[in-house]
């Protein structure tokens, strides 16, 4: 399936991930956690299919079990004692629940980052930071180009060395020494050619005034609507939290307020932005197809 959120302007998608990941780090309230978990899960599956499904499930179960047992083993706060450990310390319900909540927070952030890795590709990152930090962005682009180049170069060096040497390299020490030799050839070749590249770039007018970078991103009407949508939802969330008490307290007893419906709606709208966008675009497409 085609992902339409991948096509929106990099600034919009970056702000979306910043907001969603930043907020997910703060939320300990089970409703918000549920919203974030469901949306991030659905979106990651939309982006990477069964691979994401497998990864999410395996990772989630391991982390959940690990944290839910580790936390009550070390943390003995809470009023509801389930049983006593061998060391004489109590194993409390609150502590176990808190372990689950905090492991969910970590899981959600990790799933969001798996979506971030698909959407915010390196060209978008360069576009976003190229104007603020031109030198670092140059380094960034050069490195991305150098990595595949160096892999090819190493292959070439190995082939050349094979031609020169009459016998096969045997023994661990010899192999290590051989590897070192290849790396040192690699280093001098790369350093020398990089300096040449920089001289060539300079000769062609790199860094002169009035030069611009090519990019293919344009803010469209849809991007403005998306920005507006996110601003509305984030302000709904923040302002409702200022007025209505929706705290979630776990110690000494679990006390959760479940009445901030506006806040839930706002967070739902924010987290589901890419999913809703995809649904909308699909419906639009089907509508146009049906009209033909």
């Amino acid at each position, binding site marked *: 399936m085609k992902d339409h959120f991948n096509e929106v302007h990099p600034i919009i998608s970056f702000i979306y991930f910043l907001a969603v990941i930043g907020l997910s780090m703060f939320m300990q309230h089970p409703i918000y956690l549920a919203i974030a978990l469901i949306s991030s899960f659905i979106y990651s599956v939309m982006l990477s299919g069964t691979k994401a499904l497998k990864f999410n499930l395996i990772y989630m179960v391991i982390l959940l079990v690990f944290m839910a047992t580790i936390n009550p083993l070390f943390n003995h706060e809470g009023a509801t004692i389930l049983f006593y450990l061998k060391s004489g310390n109590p194993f409390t319900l609150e502590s176990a629940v808190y372990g689950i909540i905090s492991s969910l927070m970590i899981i959600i952030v990790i799933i969001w980052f*798996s979506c971030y890795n698909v959407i915010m590709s390196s060209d978008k990152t360069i576009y976003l930071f190229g104007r603020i930090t031109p030198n*670092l962005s140059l380094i960034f682009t*050069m490195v991305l180009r*150098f990595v595949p180049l160096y892999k090819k170069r190493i292959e070439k060096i190995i082939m050349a060395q094979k031609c020169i040497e009459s016998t096969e390299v045997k023994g661990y020490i010899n192999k290590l020494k051989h590897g070192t030799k290849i790396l040192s050839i690699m280093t*001098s070749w*790369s350093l020398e050619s990089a300096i040449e590249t920089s001289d060539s770039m300079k000769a062609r007018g790199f860094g002169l005034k009035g030069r611009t970078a090519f990019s293919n991103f344009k803010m469209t009407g849809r991007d403005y609507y998306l920005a507006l949508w996110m601003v509305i939802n984030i302000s709904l969330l923040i302002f409702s939290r200022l007025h209505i008490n929706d705290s979630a307290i776990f110690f000494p007893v679990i006390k959760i307020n479940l009445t901030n419906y506006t806040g839930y709606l706002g967070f739902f709208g924010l987290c589901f932005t890419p999913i809703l966008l995809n649904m909308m675009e699909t419906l639009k497409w089907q509508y146009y197809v049906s009209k033909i």
Partner: protein
Amino acid sequence: MNRKTLNAFIILILIPITMLFGIYVLDDRKYYFISMLIILYTLLPFFLMFEKKGPKLREVMLIAVMIALAVAGRSAFFMLPQFKPVVAIVIISGFCLGSQSGFLIGAMSGFISNFFFGQGPWTVYQMFAFGLIGFLAGLFKNSKTLNTNINKKALCLYGFIATFFIYGGIVNIQPSLMSGHVMNWKATMAVYVSAVPFDLMHSIATMIFLYFIAEPMIEKIDRIRIKYGLNGLSH
């Protein structure tokens, strides 16, 4: 704003304000968010100074090559977990090119290699840990000219200590910070203890790499620096 005022501003004003904000506004619970912010503040001046200095294109290239070698090295050994040459290359770079470039090369290696390995909440911590190792390696460099006689044993020892204590120490604290509620020393120690075999593996790998590649690489970098007159990098 020069470097000293910027550093003073960050250390004396920005970091305390953030900590107070964490204690009073966020109820002293969001260690993760606050620690992340503080690490970002420490990364910032290096990046800003690098931009402001307006380095020569040749210097930028030299830094890019070192980062690329570190990133390519990390992906070349993808099948051996923890057995990575990144720290070794960062130490060599810091040693040859000075503290500031060392920090930059370390931090950027962490950042860019995670485009191949996956970004996550750990990226900032890795960037800081690699950067710090490179920065400290730069302090060992005493002369601006050739590093003719390299003390290989000392370099290997530094590699081991830096990987085990600095990298392991910084990166392993991240999961316990993230669990939010009151920091629990026992739980944190449990994480550290369970990470010991991995850190040990990583440290030994760094030592082995340093032992074999330090001398030839330092020689090559110095040769390039003399040939093209890149002495601006050292301060």
